[in-house]
């Protein structure tokens, strides 16, 4: 139980999953905000970077960003632009981001260079060519903390921060960090988010970790929550979407050299131990081939990732966004969101209605 109540006051998200979510009706749109116009996509797993660029404030700047950075910046511009925050509010705001850290965003720059490099039998000449062809801003495009820094620069955020990697377990960590800011460090507002960019490289990275017979399809998903104290909500005259009731985890790491997948017994026991709500939203670390939109599995269980691919680092926050939507729409009093990552680490985020 949180020592001081922390509320989720706003959520922004962009993902190809939006297209499927529309089949749930319009209520989610009142809660989970997206950039407008929504960047539609033909790819069920990927948001089109060019379409994202058309939403950014500065086309010049956006060209120097990888998709994760661009999407995160657009979402935070959208979020803070909608809620009225003073310069002082923004400066004091803390910012925690979990990133899947895709290699894809700059792979295009080095793909051809690498082939040429490896084919050149004169190694000194190959290195000289490589050096010549690396773009001067290449290192900046690869910066692991680029999203946080661009958001800070564009929106005037100056507070405590971290960029954390890289699986869905990190989603719980950024929410915990945000809560700590509000509960222990005297802050009133924290911006927390997760950025998962689909990428062939990421799929290969995590491909060995899923259970035998399963496969992984990475999917774009970028989600940001605004966390606030009751005092801040009162000052701003804002009604929150829901309250954070509880956060739990089991961070024991599975045997990295064992062929067996994550223990289902452990997973089910965790759900059983921490389930308190009527509705349970859960994600899986791999796509076992289910299709369709999120559907009730009976007994209040909802698989939030069904058919969307794997949201990676954004999995828990995606479930949380749907949970907040259900609570805010009055469909349930509370939800438990469960997640297991590819190392077998389990996370639980419980949300509840205000009244």
């Amino acid at each position, binding site marked *: 139980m949180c020592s001081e109540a922390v509320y989720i006051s706003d959520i922004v998200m962009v993902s190809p999953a939006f297209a499927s979510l529309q089949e749930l009706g319009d209520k989610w749109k009142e809660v989970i905000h997206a950039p407008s116009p929504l960047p539609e996509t033909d790819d069920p797993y990927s948001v089109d970077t060019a379409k994202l660029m058309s939403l950014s404030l500065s086309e010049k700047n956006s060209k120097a960003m990888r998709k994760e950075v661009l999407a995160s910046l657009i979402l935070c511009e959208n979020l803070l632009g909608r809620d009225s925050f003073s310069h002082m509010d923004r400066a004091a705001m803390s910012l925690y981001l979990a990133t899947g850290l895709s290699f894809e965003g700059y792979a295009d720059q*080095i793909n051809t260079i*690498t082939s040429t490099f490896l084919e050149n039998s004169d190694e000194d000449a190959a290195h000289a060519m*490589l*050096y010549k062809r690396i773009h001067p801003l290449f290192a900046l495009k690869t910066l692991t903390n680029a999203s946080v820094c*661009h958001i800070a620069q564009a929106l005037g955020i*100056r507070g405590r921060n971290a960029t954390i990697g890289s699986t869905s377990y990190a989603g719980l960590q950024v929410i915990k960090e945000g809560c700590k800011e509000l509960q222990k460090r005297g802050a009133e507002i924290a911006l927390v988010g997760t950025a998962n960019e689909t990428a062939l490289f990421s799929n290969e990275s995590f491909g060995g970790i899923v259970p035998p017979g399963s496969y992984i399809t990475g999917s774009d998903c970028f989600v940001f929550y605004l966390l606030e104290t009751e005092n801040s909500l009162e000052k701003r005259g804002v009604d929150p979407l829901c309250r954070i009731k509880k956060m739990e985890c089991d961070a024991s790491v599975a045997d990295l050299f064992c062929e067996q997948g994550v223990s289902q017994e452990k997973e089910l026991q965790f759900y059983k131990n921490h389930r308190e709500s009527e509705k349970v939203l859960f994600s899986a670390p791999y796509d076992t081939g289910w299709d369709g939109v999120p559907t009730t599995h009976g007994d209040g269980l909802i698989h939030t990732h069904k058919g969307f691919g794997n949201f990676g680092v954004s999995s828990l926050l995606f479930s949380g966004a749907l949970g907040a939507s259900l609570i805010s729409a009055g469909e349930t009093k509370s939800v438990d969101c469960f997640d297991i990552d590819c190392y077998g680490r389990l996370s639980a985020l419980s949300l509840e209605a205000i009244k």
Partner: protein
Amino acid sequence: MSNGNRVFVVDYQAISPLGITNEEILQSIEQKRLCGAPLSMRAGKSIGTIGAEVKAPLSDYYTHEHEVLREMCNFNRKMELTLSCYNLLEPRLEALYNACAPDRRAVAYGWGIDIVNIDKLPKGPQNGRSLIEILQDHNRRLGKINTMFNPNDIASMVIARKGQLFGWQKTILTACASSSQAIGTAFESIRSGDIHMALAGGGDSLFDPISFSGFSKLGIIASRCEQPQKSCKPFDLNRRGTLLGEGSGLLVLASEELVERAGITPKLEILGYGTSLDGYKITAPDPSGSGIYTAITDALSDADISPEVVDYVNMHGTGTIANDEVELKVVSDIYGKSGHSVLASSTKDRHGHQIAAAGIQEFIITALAMEHSLVPCTVNLEKPLSAEGVDLVQGENRRHNLNVCVSNSFAFGGVNSVLVMRKVK
């Protein structure tokens, strides 16, 4: 000051260009050893530049590991530096492990960007294949781990699995502030009572052709110097850029309760941590220094100490035009006002800028300095920038009792992280 448990540093281990044992590193500091040299990697030879490499052979420290880890170490230098560091430390962790349950132990690890080391790939016709296709051909998958496609939190996971550190694991990806933030987050978690013990640090190496070329192109490296050892001159009027380095390191942090239960004598106490964002430019620190000012004053406030009790500041001091001027100005503003002159130096001219491992490297050097009452000088500082209230230690190390020290780490993009530590009496 945030009330909570006291947090002690009970041990530390670094893999550094200065050495791979605490004794070797101390000796290198005492001898003012400078590690800048022409790079052994092929890119270094052809591009003609320099760096501070870990020269010690490391393979002996992981020959007993699973073949996947050995292969990963061969391909990924950061992993080799990290695994060697943990394995050197592990025999000294038994008492703490015995006294602390796995779910009360954690690991926070700073990690740099994973760029494929294409020097390790077989040369020959590629038939137009992309890098990923080339890597797929050479990938080996044994158990859950791929040898060529390492998730960026693989080091944290390997350490967590080996040490049964199951309270939580965090991989901090904040460029040059990564390992400093890793220490900060572990410190706060022990202080708040979430866990009793943590390994905190980081590992990084940019000595592969793509990373190295990319950083060279930024124009922040003092390259093509006739005297490699003298290339990096933090806080000097004639500074021309930084010296890239590589390394890894881990602190062993423990709560007061655990230290007592395990019967261990701590080396230091961490008192405070501050972090902030410049929000200025990706390429340069805010010239007003306001973000750095906030991080330092927050850390001092968190530690509940005033600037005049700080004996020594281990500066971020990269040797670049932009960083050193702003950092020195802010340090002068904060410490100079207190009326006493704080000792300060940067040691990057000795071991290079280790990016994600910079914070842990410099924390350990500061810890050694405190243990041995030795203020490490900036060896290459000849014509110092002037700053009121800051005694830049140049040329020669000094003997001085160091009770309270501060370590500054600032990252590309304007992430600032500051740690305050005190000698245990």
